[in-house]
């Protein structure tokens, strides 16, 4: 057995010497098994948490993971995935359909949306893993004082704000249906203006009065503080946003069904309450995503 290993090593070395001049990829050099799973995350705090959760759970089970954080919006990160620069990233199914798959019609249910998205990804050589229980939908939030002054309950009430409302939002908000496009079409907010800013900065902008409203996510930790009011969306501009990791089928093949089981086990435990708690810990108490994820995984018996 030992001798066979030695022989194999000799053959490999010989092949390496005489064979192709293509340098070995640094990630595969010197070990067996597949290359590390490259997980990407979008450019905001909840994504960082999700990245840490999947990464740490996989690493705890002996998988090698390379985490690329803060890549960018869905368009960019999905393109990176399609380019092969990533193996997997957690995506909000509604965003995937509206912004990447260009599906304008809102699916009847989260399950239908998942099915639709799955079909879209399979056509590209990818697949969606299990969906999370939580949904992190887009929403518009204002300060309680602003809401009182203009008697705001729902998004449509923003039309009463004189001079048009200023909305602090990520840049893509301007061009998305779940943004100014939908707000104009469904609520007629023609005077609304989007003020582009990095995700996470809009609460501070709201606090300082630089903007009147902020595009927020329903799982944002700040919303649990009671300092902000989320406006109702009766006409359904913002859909539900359950998360499902999109993974390249080639990567899944090389890492095997066990990896999928680990990822699915994490996704299953991510309820809305759990996400808000973790988001609050990171966004409001300034704890590190890695620590919060580690705590959660240990509590859930996943690590």
């Amino acid at each position: 057995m030992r001798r066979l290993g030695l022989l194999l090593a000799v053959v490999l070395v010989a092949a390496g010497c005489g064979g192709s001049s293509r340098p070995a990829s640094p990630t595969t050099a010197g070990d067996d098994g597949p290359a590390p799973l490259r997980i990407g995350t979008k450019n905001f705090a909840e994504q960082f948490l999700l990245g840490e959760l999947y990464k740490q759970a996989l690493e705890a089970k002996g998988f090698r993971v390379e985490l690329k954080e803060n890549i960018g919006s869905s368009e960019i990160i999905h393109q990176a995935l399609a380019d092969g620069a990533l193996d997997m990233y957690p995506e909000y199914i509604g965003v995937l359909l509206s912004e990447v798959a260009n599906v304008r019609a809102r699916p009847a249910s989260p399950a239908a949306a998942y099915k639709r998205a799955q079909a879209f990804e399979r056509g590209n050589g990818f697949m969606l893993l299990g969906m999370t229980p939580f949904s992190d939908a887009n929403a518009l939030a204002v300060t309680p004082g602003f809401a009182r002054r203009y008697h705001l309950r729902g998004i449509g009430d923003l039309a009463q704000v004189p001079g048009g409302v200023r909305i602090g939002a990520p840049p893509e908000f301007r061009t998305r249906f779940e943004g100014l496009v939908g707000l104009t079409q469904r609520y007629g907010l023609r005077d609304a203006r989007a003020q582009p800013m990095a995700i996470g900065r809009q609460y501070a902008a709201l606090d300082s009065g630089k903007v009147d409203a902020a595009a927020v996510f329903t799982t944002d930790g700040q919303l649990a503080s009671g300092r902000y009011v989320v406006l109702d969306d009766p006409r359904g501009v913002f859909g539900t946003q359950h998360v499902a990791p999109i993974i390249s089928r080639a990567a899944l093949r090389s890492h095997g069904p066990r990896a999928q089981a680990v990822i699915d086990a994490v996704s299953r435990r991510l309820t809305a309450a759990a996400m808000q708690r973790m988001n609050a810990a990171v966004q409001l108490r300034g704890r590190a995503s890695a620590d919060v994820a580690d705590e959660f995984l240990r509590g859930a018996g996943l690590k």
Partner: protein
Amino acid sequence: MTRAPEGSRLVRRTLRTPITTRVLLLSAAAAVLIGTVMVVLIVAVTGQRDAARSAFRSQEALAAGNQLEKSLLSIENGVRGYVASRRERFLDPANEALASYPGEVRRLTTLVDDDPGQQARAQEIGGEIDDYVKLWARPLIGVARRQPAQARSIVITNQGRLRLDRIQRDFNGLFARERAVINAREKRAEQGSSRAIGVGAGGLALVILVTLGVTLYLRRAVVRPVVTVAAATGRLAAGELSARVPARRHDELGDLARGFNTMADSLQRSRDELEHSNAELKRSNAELDQFASVTSHDLQAPLTTISMYAELIERRHASDLNGGMALVDGIRNATQEARTLIRDLLEYSRAGRGELALEDVPAGDMVTRALEALAGPIEAAGARVTVADLPILRVDRAGVCRVFQNLIGNAVKFRVPGRPPEVAIGAAREGAMWRLWIRDNGIGMQPADAERIFEPFKRLHGEEAYPGTGIGLAICERIVSQHGGRIWATSTPGAGSTFLFTLPAAED
């Protein structure tokens, strides 16, 4: 009892070491010194070369980093331009940079691989650039192709710029560190070169000093003693036999000095002995001459008396004696013979003594005088005398006349019976002297005899055959010698002899 101090013992030990060993040791020490200087120089120069090389490498690394930064800006600007305008040509520089940047990253990483920290930084930057390209620039191009409006709104977020800024910050860290490395290396190289210059100058000075020292030492230890011995040799050669050199040393030069002194001692001893025996000889010769002179002079008076009484007997008592007259004749003859002997002896003892009355005299005159004196015997023998052209000599006229007379007389006297003598007289120049000769066709002699005939009273033949006292040639020898010349004879027995002698020429 006093003990020699350490120093002098050291000196003595040094003096006992052979010069060869000392010179070898000095040369070895000089070689070691020069070798050490060379090694230090080589080390310094090598260090400086290495420092210069690595400084050059660092400069290259900086250049590579700058190139890489430029490529990144090309990508970012190209992508932004494309996103804003949707014109493919904006992507040309970006595509070029996208193709070239991996090589540039590898080059940078290779150029800083002599510093692990820098290499780690370069690798980190390489990873960030990879992420920027793969997770930002390329996807953005893809988005721009399909969803230009989205791409434009994404570009506005400046995330690309932010990523580049981060990379640039890392670059600045790398550059700052590399510049620090360059500065340190340059400083080290500068220090190394000034050290090399110092070592070179110091080594050169030291080598010059050592060479000077060795030269001075050799001068003191070898040249000066040799010169001393040479000077003493010169004095010795000039006759100053008391010349000696100090011989305290115990090396080869000491041996030389001792050898010289021994030689000088021996020479002086020999000369003293010679001088002593010479003086002795002179004294005894002088005594002998004095004795001969006094004796001959004193003997003449009694002989004259005897001769006078013999005559008186003959004159007055011839009739009384009868046959006794023959006895009286015998007395008279013997007395005459004794007087001749005494005269010759006196002449011999006078010859060579006293001052020479030097004057320029034609040799021909003196030959003529001699022939006149010998006219009787010449005629009696029927001899023929041939005289060649003869020179003017600077001599004592009476003495040299006597020489010619003796030699020509001998030539006529020792003839072969029945053969008329033939005598030839000639001369030839020989430096400051003239060589003169008198050749005959007489009886000749054995070559061994030719050397002995100049001794006083030496006769080769009985007086009955050839009369004479045997003092003539001895007198000739004395006169010629007194003039600074020499006399000798060559001969063939039965065929004749040639007598040759040299005398000073007249001054021109």
